[in-house]
């Protein structure tokens, strides 16, 4: 197997697709990194479930205001034009289809767009947060993820095995090996690492990779 993208590089690649003027919710953890790599010259407005629109970067250490946090409970700052609102209004933005993009992590993604990202099954404390709302709200649902599990097993599957977060909702998957759109319940390969053959990629993917037109090279700088 060839070398793969780091999480930061996956985030960088996803960030290149952020359109100017988009309203975007970045999931807790890994997806939050995307904001760092937004291309210059594009204005993107970030939403957080706990009631802020148009927040900015983290403040310098020691200057945190713990009443000014994002959904991951990390301290943030405000951009000019920010607003505060309560949780029902915040999820009206989500559920009402007003966000352009929501980006999530995932345990599993199925070729029909199903996603599992909240529960590894019985025995743990279940926690869902806003994910079940986000997957049905934004116009596009992006997933950023390693292409395979830590054990090397495919995370892109014909059907999810873990408890679902949402059905038929994912639109694009940015992985450590490829960029894949979900179109008509199929994984359509858009880009792959140039050093990797289609057969090699298919071998670590749990459902058919459909090719439509040219496959782009997934080339990402060191970040």
């Amino acid at each position, binding site marked *: 197997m060839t070398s793969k993208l780091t999480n930061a590089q996956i985030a960088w690649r996803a960030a290149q697709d952020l359109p*100017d*003027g988009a*309203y975007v919710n970045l999931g807790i953890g890994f997806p939050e990194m995307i904001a760092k790599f937004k291309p210059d010259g594009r*204005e993107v*407005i970030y*939403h957080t479930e706990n009631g*802020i*629109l*148009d927040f900015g970067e983290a403040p310098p250490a020691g200057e945190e205001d713990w009443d000014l946090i994002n959904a991951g409970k990390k301290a943030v700052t*405000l*951009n*000019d*034009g*920010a*607003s*505060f*609102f309560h949780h*029902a*209004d915040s*999820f*009206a*933005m*989500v*559920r*009402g*289809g*007003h*966000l352009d993009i929501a980006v999530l992590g995932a345990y599993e993604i199925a070729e029909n767009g199903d996603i599992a990202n909240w529960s590894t099954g019985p025995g743990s404390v279940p926690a869902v947060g806003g994910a079940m709302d986000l997957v*049905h*709200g934004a116009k596009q649902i992006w997933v950023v993820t390693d292409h395979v599990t830590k054990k090397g097993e495919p995370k892109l599957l014909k059907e999810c095995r873990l408890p679902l977060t949402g059905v038929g909702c994912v639109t694009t998957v940015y992985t450590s090996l490829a960029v894949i759109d979900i179109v008509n319940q199929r994984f359509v390969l858009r880009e792959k690492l140039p050093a990797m053959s289609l057969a090699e990629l298919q071998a670590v993917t749990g459902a058919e990779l459909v090719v439509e037109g040219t496959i782009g090279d997934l080339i990402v700088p060191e970040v």
Partner: protein
Amino acid sequence: MNKICPNFDEALAGIEDGMAVMIGGFGGAGAPIELIHALVERYKKTGSPGRLTVINNNAGNGAIGIAAMIYAGMVAKMVCSFPRSSDPKAFTDAYLAGEIELELVPQGTLAERIRAGGAGIPAFYTPSSYGTQVADGKPIAEFDGKHYVQERWLKADVALIKAEVADRKGNLTYRKAARNFSPLMATAAKTTIVQAGRIVEPGEIDPEQVITPGIFVNRIVEIPDPKQEEALLREGAK
């Protein structure tokens, strides 16, 4: 990101025959008179947009605002709670002549249906109108021993609203009771078009005091010193 339009043509572009148009205001407070009249002028010149469904609490007063739309012949249907006013002739005549359709919705249900449209709630239950003609044909359900009527969300192609202050990102504040339905309509329309009395730089509206966050707004046109419908009527506007 700059949602400010230089003129009515750009602000009102894409409003087509047969569309559903939410119009802010309760009585004269919050009625976006300049936007409405620009649309009426367009209809008079071009014959479009006609056959509109107009959603507002009322159905026009005198001969200005929504009443002017009705007199111009642009309105096929009104969705409202109270199609009466001090001078309801425009609507009343058209309605009694069978030229305009009426969907009568209790005021709280109208507000909640619009909110639901903006919030992605396709249906909800309300006690309002249970046991009345207004509930005829609607699903009824019992919760905790009480009966409720199922109501559907209400969305529109376009919302025309009036704000007091706006910034280029679309953040809005309103003036007093001119707020009424406008923050809800802004959330429930595909394209929300705002006339604002004043445009400021982003950040000049305190984030705590933004009433409509910019995510709900598509286009803004600045109308300093806007007309107030009720004041116009009292001045004898025709």
